């Protein structure tokens, strides 16, 4: 699935998004029609910029942890030492993805209390699965002759992993990371129901005070961030695939 936006449109949208986050006041007339009874048109219970940064920070921390653990586990179960875990880890990924994010989030609360922590745990666990799944796919579907050639060239197992297997599966792994980030960006908003500081606060404030303008601006910022991060990671994947001489998707 490709997301094609003309380059010029992309730049304009990015500038608009940044301008809105930094100085939402400029856009007040646009949101005014969405409010009733003279309610404020722009979120006024905190700065959108700091909420956006906290939102991105939470997603980044959870995703980086998920990347490290997921790739580490995928490497482990594709080595001879961990081969016994391979079938089980496949089914665990399948089972894990049936868990709704809200349930993971709500169930993390009794363990760690309210605030950022349950959100980080939910995002981490939920983000783990797509990355792990793709890393497994990448590492188990390498062309056999390339791996043989690496062994024939006298590479040690470590060299084979770092110079051949990981670079070759990088595009697939990146696709998993992209999926994980986009899911996490949206899921982080639900974190605000357990008192995490994310853009979900804006949306929930809108739902509570019946102010559509808040809901729309919170949603638009998250969706905008997701589209651009999706786009950027997609570009990264194309570069990685081209460097590996694979067909550019």
């Amino acid at each position, binding site marked *: *699935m*490709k*997301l*094609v*936006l003309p380059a010029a449109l992309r730049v304009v949208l990015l500038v608009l998004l940044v301008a809105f986050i930094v100085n939402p006041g400029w856009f007040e007339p646009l949101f005014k029609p*969405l409010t009733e009874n003279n309610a404020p048109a722009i979120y006024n219970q905190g700065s959108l910029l700091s909420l956006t940064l906290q939102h991105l920070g939470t997603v980044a921390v959870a995703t980086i942890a998920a990347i490290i653990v997921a790739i580490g586990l995928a490497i482990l179960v594709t080595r001879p*030492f*961990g081969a*016994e*875990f391979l*079938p*089980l880890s*496949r*089914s*665990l990924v*399948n*089972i894990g*993805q*049936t*868990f*709704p*994010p*809200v*349930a993971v989030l*709500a*169930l993390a*609360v*009794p*363990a760690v209390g309210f605030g950022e922590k349950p959100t980080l745990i939910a995002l981490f666990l939920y983000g783990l699965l797509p990355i792990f799944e793709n890393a497994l796919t990448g590492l188990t579907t390498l062309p056999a002759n390339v791996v043989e050639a690496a062994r024939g060239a006298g590479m040690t197992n470590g060299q084979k992993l770092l110079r051949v297997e990981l670079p070759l599966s990088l595009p697939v792994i990146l696709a998993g990371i992209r999926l994980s980030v*986009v899911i996490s*960006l*949206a*899921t982080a*908003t*639900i974190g605000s*129901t*357990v008192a995490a500081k994310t*853009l*979900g606060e804006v*949306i*929930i404030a*809108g*739902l509570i005070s019946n102010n*559509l303008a808040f*809901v*729309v601006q*919170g*949603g*638009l910022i*998250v*969706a905008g961030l*997701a*589209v651009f991060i*999706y786009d950027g990671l997609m570009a990264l994947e194309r570069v990685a695939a081209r460097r590996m001489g694979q067909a550019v998707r």
Partner: protein
Amino acid sequence: MAIRFDKLGVVIAAIAGYAAFFAPFATFRANRIVPGEGRFILDALPAVGGPLLLALIIAAIFVALLKTPLAWRLVASVAVLIALALAIGVAGSFLTPPNNTFARISPASGFWLLIFAFTLLLADVLTRLELSPFVRIGILLVAAVAVGALLASGSWDSLSILKEYANRAGSFWAEARKHVALALGSLVAAVVVGLPIGILCHRVEVLRAGVLNVLNIIQTIPSIALFGMLIGPLGWLALHVPGAAALGIRGIGTAPAFVALFLYSLLPVVANTVVGLAGVPKAANEAARGMGMTDRQRLFGVEFPLAFPVILTGIRIVLVQNIGLATIAALIGGGGFGVFVFQGVGQTAMDLVLLGAVPTVSLAFAAAIVLDAVIELTATSRRREAVA
């Protein structure tokens, strides 16, 4: 001869050993919201029960730890899971002081970790057995009947999650019906609308990128925002279009939740229809055309049946995703199991969260197993036809 250990068994033994000896098995609370105190297995069960359960767990740990036949591992994991299910019920009635309706007993971390460890063992055995789709559905049914029997027998009635249920039995089933209706109804709507769009996108290449892009962008809008944004337009419809309100279209409630789930469901259905149709072998299409089939005959007689497993995969994604997302509907008054989850989060009453979360997870899990089995059945039957 050196003893060979099973590597997964080492992991399971570590988790189960910690859970059985160092983590509390049940939590006792004097009332619904005070912090609880942990009770270990030996304190939580009547005199004979505790040592008996521990002995069974230790035996099962050894079965997992050593390289034992699959059948042993299957028996060990099922035996421990059944014993745990029974024991937690016994612990519930044992720990509740007589004539006390305020005390709450709930499973604690040790119980959950034991369940996790032996479910891991069971999952590993079931994966290795490579069961056929029918057997998998059969096992799901047996498990559902077993849990249903335990619930009906009343042996869990002294546990806090069921006390929450007892207080809300009526609304629980009403929310359950709403939840299923939301998840299934939006799926049906998405299939009815999405299939023709997918076919159109397959036939008319110009449309494809544009339509998929729009659907992709809808997917990136966070669910609570999309639910919220639909409040406005639907509220306007209800006010200004005669008859709309009578059809149940309202600003808040089920209508925006339904529309949001429907919008989220469109992408997997449309995208998988396009991918499935694109994957139909050229030779099959050529042959059909050579036989003088019309476009319509070709679509229903050749392309559609061949693309069906891929389309079904899209439907599986949608159904599992919708069952989970429907919990968010509660935030905008749409009902569903999310009502209990968010009420529980609000009152920091975790049993109430579980009352909403456990049925949601079970539903999603059951839907995934059933649809996976159906997908495998259709895919293999196609292959068999192709060979024949």
